[in-house]
């Protein structure tokens, strides 16, 4: 039973990591504005 529970918890954590945002999503938050390239949407709006 302990083995099964440990396996389930480990698999659940791997599942969480797989669906969490990657580092790319943090770039806009931390990089200076000049380093962030405008998206297609922003360009078309401009």
């Amino acid at each position, binding site marked *: 039973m*302990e083995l099964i529970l440990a396996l389930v918890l480990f698999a659940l954590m791997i599942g*969480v*990591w797989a669906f969490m945002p990657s580092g790319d999503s*943090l770039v806009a938050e931390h990089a200076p504005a000049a380093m962030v390239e405008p998206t297609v949407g922003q360009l078309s709006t401009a």
Partner: protein
Amino acid sequence: MDAINGADTAWVLLSAALVMLMTPALGLFYGGMVRQKNVLSTLMHSFFMLALISVQWVLVGYSLAFGPDKGGVIGGLEWIGLNGVGIEPNPTYAATIPHQAFMVYQMMFAVITPALISGAFAERKRFKSFIIFSLAWSTLVYDPVAHWVWADGGWLRSLGALDFAGGTVVHITSGVSALVCALVLGRRLGYGKEAMEPHDTTMTFIGTALLWFGWFGFNAGSALGSGGLAVSAFVNTNSAAAMAALAWMTASWLRHKRPSIMGASAGAVAGLVGITPAAGFVTPMGALLIGFFAGAGCFFVVEYVVRGRVDDALDVFGVHGVGGLLGALLVGVFATKAINPAGADGLLLGNVKQLGVQALTVGVVALYSAGMTWGILKVIDLVVGLRVSQDEEKLGLDTTQHGEVAYRMGA
């Protein structure tokens, strides 16, 4: 006279050295988390314990903790100044190593325990008050509790309480006392209004790595020999630390949207705390589960219960108090005599009573630690005061308490 075993003696001495390293490592772990103006003060809080409690232990502490029992509550004074504590083994505690090897190994536990508390009052406690508090706390809290749980004749040990390496004696005492310290001293100036970010995450990471390394001595050394039980405790220690690091990091990633190294570090320490009482009593699968619950449980308490309400500056209660409590209870669930015939079976093997004994131990030790700590702090506050002045706190403890500056950029 019992025969001294060379391998056992070497392992226990090496373990004592490993545990010794944990105290300055704790200084690094805490030191990275405080602001730049308080890093030396925080390092000093740990390092100074190595000197202060080493002397206290040799003079009187060891005798109070492990000396001939007086009513199950305290050791006698027969062994003060290490009188009668020589190189011959004491079969009551460890039959194959010199009595002094056991004594010095236990000394390192006594050293690190009050140092753990220092994280709760970081950045605002007067150094003089810190010295008095630590000396009084070690003598009035650590030594008696160590006697209750570990010493021959101690009343909790006689009841059957399991604490392989100090989940109760070290982590519950220090964690609960830390919460009381944080409440009595009050919040740091600006707490909740200004950012109090860790000034050096790299320093905290180095501290974590050294703590993990030293913890092999803490837990595997508690086998007091170099055989299979030490190996079992070693494997369990690493397994729990790893699982807890993953659990805390995962929870932190979910909440804060980033997998921080600070979270992974805190999680590893929570797992090490959680497995401490259980290291020599559970299987590696039990260790993984204890690690998971310690990592996730401590994260939950730190994030949702303590933070914002109490200024436990470096999360001592959340990690050591809660981790110790969880570990002490879970050993009553996962323990098995198949790993350690000198231990007991836990709840999963049908022994409900063991969980009850563990709960009683946790409750009694937590209440005693909280009450005594509150009393000691109140007396010190009346006599010499606990906190630095507001001006000193703004300037930082490195300058005002120690006359030193950590970083001289461009000097």
